[in-house]
């Protein structure tokens, strides 16, 4: 197994660890709101009609 492949597997492990931590702590920058600080916030609000064309 090459050093590059090992490095990539380590990268995969890091990404998976990050995803697991985010899932465990219910953290996401894409949520409509967040209760524990960090990204997110009040979304939605007034919406001025359809965006068609």
């Amino acid at each position, binding site marked *: 197994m090459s050093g590059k492949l090992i490095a990539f597997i380590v990268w995969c492990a890091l990404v*998976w660890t990050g995803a*697991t931590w985010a899932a*465990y*702590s219910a953290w996401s920058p894409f949520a409509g709101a967040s*209760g524990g600080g960090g990204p997110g916030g009040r979304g939605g609000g007034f919406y001025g009609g359809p965006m*068609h064309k």
Partner: protein
Amino acid sequence: MIAGRKFDCPGCGGTLEIRAAGYTTTVACRYCGSVIDVASPDATLITQYHQAVAELAIPLGTRGTIAGIEWEAIGWQSRSSAGESWDEFLLFNPYAGYRWLVRADGEWTFGRALESLPEMLSDDVVRWQDAKWEVEDDPATMVTIRVVGEFYWRVKVDETVTGRTFWSGSRQLSCEQNRDEVNWTALDPIDSDGVGKAFGINPDGGSRPDGGLGGGLGSSGPPPGKSIDHFADTRSSPRPFVRWTFVAALFAAALAFITMAAFGGHGTPATGSLSLGVGGPERTVTLGPVEVKRAWQTVTISAAGDEFANKWVDLDYALVDRRTHQAIEAGDTLEYYTGTDSDGPWTEGSHSTSTMIARVPRGSYDVVMTASAHAWSDGTAPSPVVDDPWSINPTGTIALTLSAATGGVLWGNFMVVLVLLFAPPCFFAWRKMKGA
């Protein structure tokens, strides 16, 4: 082909034949594996072994035509590195010299020794035949674990070299080095079916299709007309490194999805309903309790409306902690539009929507929902309120079904995970395809 010279193996007494007489210096007995020096008139035993007859994909002595030249398989060695082994067949033609057929991981390459050395541009890049070749793997130690047949150098089992492979597309330059010399070999991918047809063998198996054992010096050649005149498409054979990065990324993505789904399992939902008059006042409904049992969880609030068109519902949510009365606010819009224009009918929006609130701390919550319904017209209907086009057609009601529950898969996070995992393999593949 050149006439052979027969002699008896000094190790086991088996009769062997030298096919490249005058060129071959070493013969590895196909019966016992002993290595014999045939450079001198009297065959001398170099190293004695007692091994079983090897079962070869291409029996020695078999002839096949590749690129218009008839080659005879005269030697075979099995080599290994980092726990993986592969086969190398030495081919000989008295007018064209030596070539290699290498089978690794089910794929074949056709190799020849370089006549001109590559120009070293850096430790990892060489130039040869006006192309840049980049190294993909770290130097690896390669060990010869078995040999059978005849060779033009003093071959021996347990011989160790350090090898590196440089790539240009799917073509390879193999650089092997030991204390005494450096050998460069150019390897081009070759279609395995073509190898099978050329040599009359099963290229994927370890034995001949007729079930006979390989290693047979003096075996008959292939049927007439069996030849291979073209190499495989150089783009059709991905490098193992690129392939394994995709495999690793796929495995990690699957693992991440399972983990995220496990942590995002839904709790018991709190449900309710609301009937809104279009253009009417805001209405409020409270759902609960929503119990957050872990230290942090997501809460997903969903709203679905009955059949409506060209209307929208503004939704304001407040997730209120029953103990502290602190609220986490969020909002959403439920909307569905339809109409007809020069391209035909169109729709936009949906009759259902959901909002996820992340990182909600442990506690018991109520969801206070405030909603108001509005209508939109495509302008064909007369407007009763000229200054407020959004109040057109303020009639009818929208029935909402509401629910709130802990859990929910963080799809945005998963998309980021996919990008982070698959971007490097895609880049590696693109770089190699570009090089090809």
